[in-house]
């Protein structure tokens, strides 16, 4: 664990939250997209994306050393990372009645993207809050290290 271990942890969190925000932006941007990809010759609307966050535990060498009883220096963890960006296949597409739409089916219904703007906004606020909290941690850390550098001056 180097002196910058905590900063690396926070940096990983900032990256993960940033990626989460990017995914949310993509969802919001595509709220009206009816032609996202072709499936069996038919256009499918945009499917909402989300991220899966997992905690990073530590390098394999750490676990090996702990198992061999050499050190017990693991367990603080190494931050977080985005392990997957999933497409939401469970939420059904929204059906909007608009017979004049190019992609309307025989009944006049258009399948819209399964993005709920309200939900995305809430997610965005949560991501922003986490991002800010991590920035606070980073600043606290930096001030601690700077203070340590002044020992003996």
């Amino acid at each position, binding site marked *: *664990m180097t002196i910058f271990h905590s900063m690396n942890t926070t940096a*990983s969190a900032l990256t993960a939250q940033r990626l989460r925000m990017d995914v949310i932006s993509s969802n919001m941007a595509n709220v009206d997209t009816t032609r996202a990809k072709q499936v069996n010759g038919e256009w499918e609307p945009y499917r909402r994306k989300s991220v899966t966050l997992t*905690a990073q535990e530590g390098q394999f060498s750490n676990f090996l050393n702990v198992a061999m009883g050499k050190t017990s220096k693991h*367990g603080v*963890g190494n931050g977080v990372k985005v392990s997957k960006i999933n497409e939401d296949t469970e939420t059904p597409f929204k059906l909007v009645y608009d017979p004049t739409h190019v992609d309307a089916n025989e009944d006049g219904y258009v399948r819209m993207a399964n993005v709920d703007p309200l939900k995305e906004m809430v997610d965005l606020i949560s991501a922003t809050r986490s991002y800010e909290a991590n920035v606070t941690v980073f600043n606290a850390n930096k001030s601690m290290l700077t203070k340590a550098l002044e020992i003996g001056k």
Partner: protein
Amino acid sequence: MDLFGGTISSLENGLSYATLKNKTIANNIANVDTPNYKAKDVSFKQMLNDAQQSSITANRNDVRHFDFSIKQSKPGVYSYENFRARHNGNGVNMDAEQASLAENTIYYNALIDRVNGKLNSLNTVIKGGK
């Protein structure tokens, strides 16, 4: 001649505790949105007493045997098996962590200040006030 006994070595212990706690807080806050993550904390007494291992350990004759000592991954660091988890299994209390962070920073700064004071006064004494 042991110039650095007593208070200075306790100050050093306190500083390692504060550094470790800072790392755990950073990790907790980083994982505030991770599903099934349980918050970690550092045990104060243990760090200060330089405890190496928990006294209750499993008799492991095979490396595959699980060690069931109190869930510690490092002297002093342990996980909360939280009763209050959010819907995604996450057990990090953001407000408590922020408060801990502020408290820990002040603690660390105070210790550094004291260490500085003691070392500087040693220096002054040795140099004879010159």
